[in-house]
């Protein structure tokens, strides 16, 4: 039977890559974003929603469960960033970043977690960033929102551990997507020089880690974070 995988933020960037990658592995993939996706595949379904919308998330997850009868994997990839000195950051931006990055991760984890807890199996992967351990200037709000995601994931791992559900984090270093396209080149170069491996990461470096977390053999791996490029 095909594995059922939910990926948030699958319209573009890393989420889009992961959707296509797992479709190639014959998974059934259900993706989410706020705007329409042009990905078409017999085993792909796209649902339009804002991950911060509690009711929309809970309705969609229940409908998916009714249709597919199980949910094996959840990848909470949807995320937004705001790069600015914090003295110049309006509170409305803080709200937006936390709505998507933290509340979105929370909403999906809770609703899918309920289903996984009943089937006594599940794998949840959340997204953090190397900006968190590096405490990067200019990324205070974004890094703080990912700190929230990290702590939440580690506690969730404890609360769900006895139910056969693992919860882990991947923290990419810079990958060329729209998320970082507006960051000045010299800032990205400085950041890359702080890494043990001073290079851009690629999409396949992410799927290497997600493969590990999703694997059946990783049943004893939970509450862990893997950062790319040797940052910790």
């Amino acid at each position, binding site marked *: 039977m095909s594995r059922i995988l939910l990926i948030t933020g699958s319209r573009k960037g890393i989420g889009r890559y992961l959707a296509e990658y797992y479709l190639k592995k014959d998974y059934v993939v259900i993706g989410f974003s706020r705007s329409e996706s042009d990905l078409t595949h017999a085993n792909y379904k796209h649902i339009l929603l804002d991950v911060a919308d509690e009711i929309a998330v*809970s*309705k969609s997850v*229940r409908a998916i469960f*009714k249709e597919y009868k199980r949910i094996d994997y959840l990848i909470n990839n949807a995320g937004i960033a705001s790069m600015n000195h914090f003295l110049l950051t309006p509170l409305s931006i803080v709200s937006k970043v936390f709505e998507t990055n933290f509340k979105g991760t929370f909403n999906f984890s809770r609703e899918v977690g*309920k*289903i996984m*807890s*009943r089937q006594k199996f599940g794998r949840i992967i959340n997204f953090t960033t190397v900006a968190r351990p590096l405490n990067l200037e200019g990324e205070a709000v974004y890094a703080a929102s990912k700190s929230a995601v990290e702590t939440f994931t580690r506690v969730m791992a404890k609360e769900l551990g*006895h139910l056969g559900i693992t919860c882990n984090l991947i923290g990419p270093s810079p990958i060329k997507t729209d998320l970082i396209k507006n960051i000045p080149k010299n800032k990205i170069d400085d950041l890359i020089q702080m890494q043990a491996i001073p290079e851009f990461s690629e999409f396949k470096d992410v799927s290497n880690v997600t493969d590990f977390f999703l694997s059946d053999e990783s049943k004893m791996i939970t509450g862990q974070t893997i950062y790319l490029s040797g940052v910790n």
Partner: protein
Amino acid sequence: MEKSRVKDIIIDSFNELLETEGISVEVNGNTALMGSDSVIDSLGLVTLLVDIEARLSDEDVEISILSEKAMSQKNSPFLNIESLTEFISEQI
């Protein structure tokens, strides 16, 4: 949905939980779901509430039992089967 149906769903779910935990007790409206009289612990209560929500959803009743309202009530709706039946019925 009739209140009696809500109660049946709660009792069915509770009985199933007891069975998996290997506990046998007589279940009725006064059966405690929390506190020192309860045969299930707090994790058991979480499992029970998640399962009841799913059973209601199977019958097209979509509610979230764990609302802010549920947590802020002076007398917890999760005290026993009767209080939970009342609380869920009010929300439907």
